[in-house]
């Protein structure tokens, strides 16, 4: 009896996990310490956001990617923000002391490299020893990462060093620079004094050479990994205009832009983003056009990013945008080099990130996000027509469900009698209130959209259409929704697809639910309140210092390329809110031939 009770208690009470698994991921040292040392310490730590800034303040040298695993094995850096900062400071002087510098002794360098990369456990890293074919043979070794470096180039380099080397042996200590000058045929070769430089280059596919008796290493550019070829744009399809899209390779991307903007004034500046794992960010702008303050601000923000790891330009956007709490996207993300080129020529700044097939363009206004670039390639009447349709569909996607709700719940006198009776008649069999009906349908539509994206392969593209059709039809037949609502939601969905900016379409989709709520609660009055609030929020927004609703938010020079797309030869000024260094695109009529003034004469003479 007593046993039964005991067993019962045992069943319903908590028992620690029996050690069935061989491995349990235990709390690390700092977590355990924090738990033991009591809650007051923890509370103080978490209550101070400045503590996290402490980590950011340390110089980037402390976060030597190679030293991380070697120096503090098994220690998490997540929790003890201040302690880690202290530890980093203590460790900081080391590189200057000489340990971080390349030594003149080959065996020391070799040991250091082995330590940094965890050789021989780390099999991706190849360390090859060889002897130079110089007069007194010189011992050397090279380091590269298998798969990142190009084999053919390396073979050629080794050939040059080992076989064809006939130069008299250099004096001790100067071998590296001499070899660089006389023997290595690689196009991009540089001297590296510290291991940090060496490791950064090797991590990015370069090959490092160490020579006996030389206090510096040679880093030769041998990047050569598999990469995707430049293809057609996937998310920004246009009928006319260039059909190239960015790829994941940063250098290819900058080249794609530079191929369109053939100007020596096109500057590309590189920054390293990421404290633990570094990515390259490129800032591109036209030196004689982009406002220097703007360029400086972009550079300041990017170099100020102390994020752990940034893989995509979309992440970078979130670190550098002005207002992370506003729904509206404050940068333009595009995958088309021609759009970036056009933006650069207006005085904007583009940011690219290694590994990301997209580019950030800043600053942008809301109107810019409704452009695709295609309008400019088309004749102006067609472009204007496209823009008007797009602007109209923007409002449709934003307001249509809300307006329908407020009309059918509050303002029934506003619609023609026949239409109202049709709405009412179709709704007679639907058991839900209109708002439930609407939310149900909107949710289903979002579901179809999301599922269509996630379902792999060929099914994915068909499930969208088929799902929507069948769902709508069946829902109507089952008297769950009224047919007029299906039409409405479908139109709204189509309208939101016609917004070219993916991010803006997202914000419109979210705002739409807000308007559905306001329309159902307060009718047109609510929608007016909502619009008013949204306009205030949006007008308050800035994208890298440029007002988000310019040129209409603050009135500036109107520009002929905002809502309409007037003829190109009339667009003689650059967008005013960008404040470029050169405001004027063309001082006279760009069609110089019209009056027979310039074009004709120059052509003859």
């Amino acid at each position, binding site marked *: 009896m007593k046993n039964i009770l005991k067993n019962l208690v045992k069943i319903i009470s908590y028992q620690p996990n029996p050690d069935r698994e061989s491995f349990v991921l235990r709390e690390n040292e700092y977590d355990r310490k924090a738990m033991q040392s009591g809650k007051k310490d923890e509370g103080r730590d978490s209550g101070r956001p400045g503590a996290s800034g402490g980590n950011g303040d340390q110089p980037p040298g402390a976060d030597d990617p190679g030293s991380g695993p070697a120096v503090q094995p098994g220690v998490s850096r997540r929790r003890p923000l201040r302690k880690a900062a202290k530890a980093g400071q203590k460790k900081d002087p080391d590189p200057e002391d000489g340990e971080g510098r390349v030594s003149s002794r080959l065996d020391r360098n070799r040991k250091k490299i082995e330590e940094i990369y965890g050789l021989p456990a780390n099999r991706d890293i190849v360390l090859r020893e060889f002897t130079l074919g110089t007069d007194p043979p010189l011992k050397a070794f090279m380091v590269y990462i298998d798969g990142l470096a190009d084999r053919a180039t390396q073979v050629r380099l080794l050939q040059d060093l080992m076989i064809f080397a006939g130069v008299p042996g250099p004096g001790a200590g100067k071998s590296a620079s001499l070899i660089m000058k006389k023997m290595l045929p690689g196009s991009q070769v540089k001297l590296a004094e510290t291991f940090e430089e060496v490791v950064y280059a090797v991590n990015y596919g370069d090959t490092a050479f160490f020579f006996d008796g030389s206090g510096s290493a040679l880093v030769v550019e041998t990047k050569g990994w598999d990469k995707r070829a430049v293809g057609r744009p996937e998310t920004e399809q246009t009928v006319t205009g260039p059909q190239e899209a960015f790829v994941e390779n940063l250098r290819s991307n900058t080249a794609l832009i530079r191929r369109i903007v053939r100007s020596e004034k096109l500057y590309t500046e590189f920054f390293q983003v990421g404290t633990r794992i570094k990515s390259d960010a490129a800032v591109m702008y036209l030196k004689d056009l982009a406002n220097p303050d703007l360029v400086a601000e972009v550079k300041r923000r990017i170099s100020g990013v102390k994020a752990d790891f940034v893989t995509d330009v979309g992440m970078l956007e979130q670190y550098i945008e002005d207002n992370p709490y506003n729904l509206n996207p404050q940068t333009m993300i595009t995958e088309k080099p021609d759009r970036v080129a056009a933006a650069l020529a207006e005085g904007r700044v583009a940011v690219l990130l290694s590994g990301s097939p997209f580019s950030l363009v800043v600053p942008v206004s809301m109107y810019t996000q409704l452009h695709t670039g295609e309008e400019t390639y088309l004749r102006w009447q067609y472009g204007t027509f496209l823009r008007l349709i797009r602007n109209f569909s923007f409002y449709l996607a934003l307001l249509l469900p809300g307006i329908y709700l407020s009309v059918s719940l509050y303002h029934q*006198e506003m619609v023609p*009698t026949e239409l109202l*009776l049709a709405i009412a*008649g179709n709704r*007679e069999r639907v058991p839900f209130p209109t708002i439930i009906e609407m939310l149900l349908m909107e949710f289903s539509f979002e579901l179809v959209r999301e599922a269509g994206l996630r379902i792999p392969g060929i099914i994915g593209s068909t499930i969208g259409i088929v799902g929507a059709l069948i769902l709508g039809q069946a829902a109507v037949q089952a008297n769950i929704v009224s047919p007029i609502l299906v039409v409405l939601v479908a139109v709204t969905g189509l309208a939101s697809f016609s917004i070219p900016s993916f991010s803006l379409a997202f914000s419109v989709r979210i705002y739409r639910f807000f308007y559905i709520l306001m329309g159902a609660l307060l009718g047109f009055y609510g929608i007016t309140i909502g619009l008013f609030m949204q306009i205030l929020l949006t007008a308050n927004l800035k994208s890298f210092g440029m007002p988000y609703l310019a040129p209409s938010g603050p009135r500036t020079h109107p520009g002929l390329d905002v809502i309409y797309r007037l003829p190109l030869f009339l667009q003689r000024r650059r967008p005013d809110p960008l404040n470029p260094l050169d405001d004027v695109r063309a001082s006279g009529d760009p069609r110089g031939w019209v009056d027979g003034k310039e074009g004709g004469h120059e052509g003859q003479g």
Partner: protein
Amino acid sequence: MRGAKIFFSLVVPLILAGCWGSRETDEIAYVLAMGFDKGPGKNIIVTFQIANPKSIAGTATGGGTGGGGAAARPLLNISTIAPLPIGAFNLVNTERGREISLLHATAYVFSEELAREGLHDYIVPLQRYRETRGTAYVFVCRGKARDFLDKNQPVLELSPSKQYELLTKVNRLHALSPVVRFHDFYNSIISPAKEAVAPLVAVGAGLETGRPPGPGKLGDYLAGDLPSNKGEPQFIGAAVFRRDKMVGTLTGDETRYLNMITGNMDRGFLIVDDPLAPGKPLGLTLIQARRPTVRVGLNEETPALKVDLYLEPEIVGVSSDINYEDPRLKTVLEKELAELVESRCRELITRTQQEFRSDIFGFGRHARTKFLTRDRWMEFRWDEAYPLARADINVHVKIRRTGLILKPHKVHR
């Protein structure tokens, strides 16, 4: 704390102003037309014509339990007796579980009997009522309004509200009936400057009962007398009011001249006697070239009305084959036509002065501009001055279009 403040300042207005006025479409009975008949004592019989949305939207297939025919009827008439139209709402709601809504009521039909006793007590409360549409139409029905609403089941249109809309649109083509919106009617009742008219409606008596129209007249009938299908609703002629009481009727032909003087006529066929070949009919389309100019002089003892009408008729049918396209003959026709229109207008004005003593043309609006203050104008007593007024009518006729024939062939007989 700050967040809570913002939250409450946003949410409290929502709750206070909020969702209490919301009504689903399936909670409401949409009244399309209302009829008013005289009831026992001081009461009136109010008839609501309620739309059946299921039938109109075409979703009423097999829905009814047994009475499938009843479920498919697009309209439902409910009558009740109440002292004021508003009171009838609650009484109807004891029968039908849906809120009565006048938001889409497009017609208010008053019986002639009720109209002759005065409509003030029904129009004014409706005007004050929140849901009444100022753009609804007002009709006066010869006979019972309830019978008219029962009979008026439009065949071509889905709902009577569309029928009323289209009737006023098509009125542009014949001008045989005035177009009076609820708000105009209310204004005419309260204003001394213009007396009210309302289109006359009735159910047709049949093809045999009608008498043929006189020469030079088209549609010289009152509603109900027009020879046509039996039992069809007819919208022709006008009821004339003095203040809120109906004092007489105008036939369709007279109404057309009323519309001409008030500038509401767009066009309309007219068949006149051929001036050069008496006995032969001559068809014309009367087109009002521009709005008539009206001047009212108050310097003499009696008001002097001066009306200039501008007509540009188009010749439609000449059965005598006389070449009226010839400029000389055209002037003959123009002169003849001007005399005809002038005499008709004069007859009509005289009739309103002597028989009705009611300024249905709104001449008072022009007279009103001669006064500086409203008090002076009210002291003047236009309603008493109008019957004594002298009317001077000038009709300017210019035939500009002669149809597709420039010179008729003599038909060989």
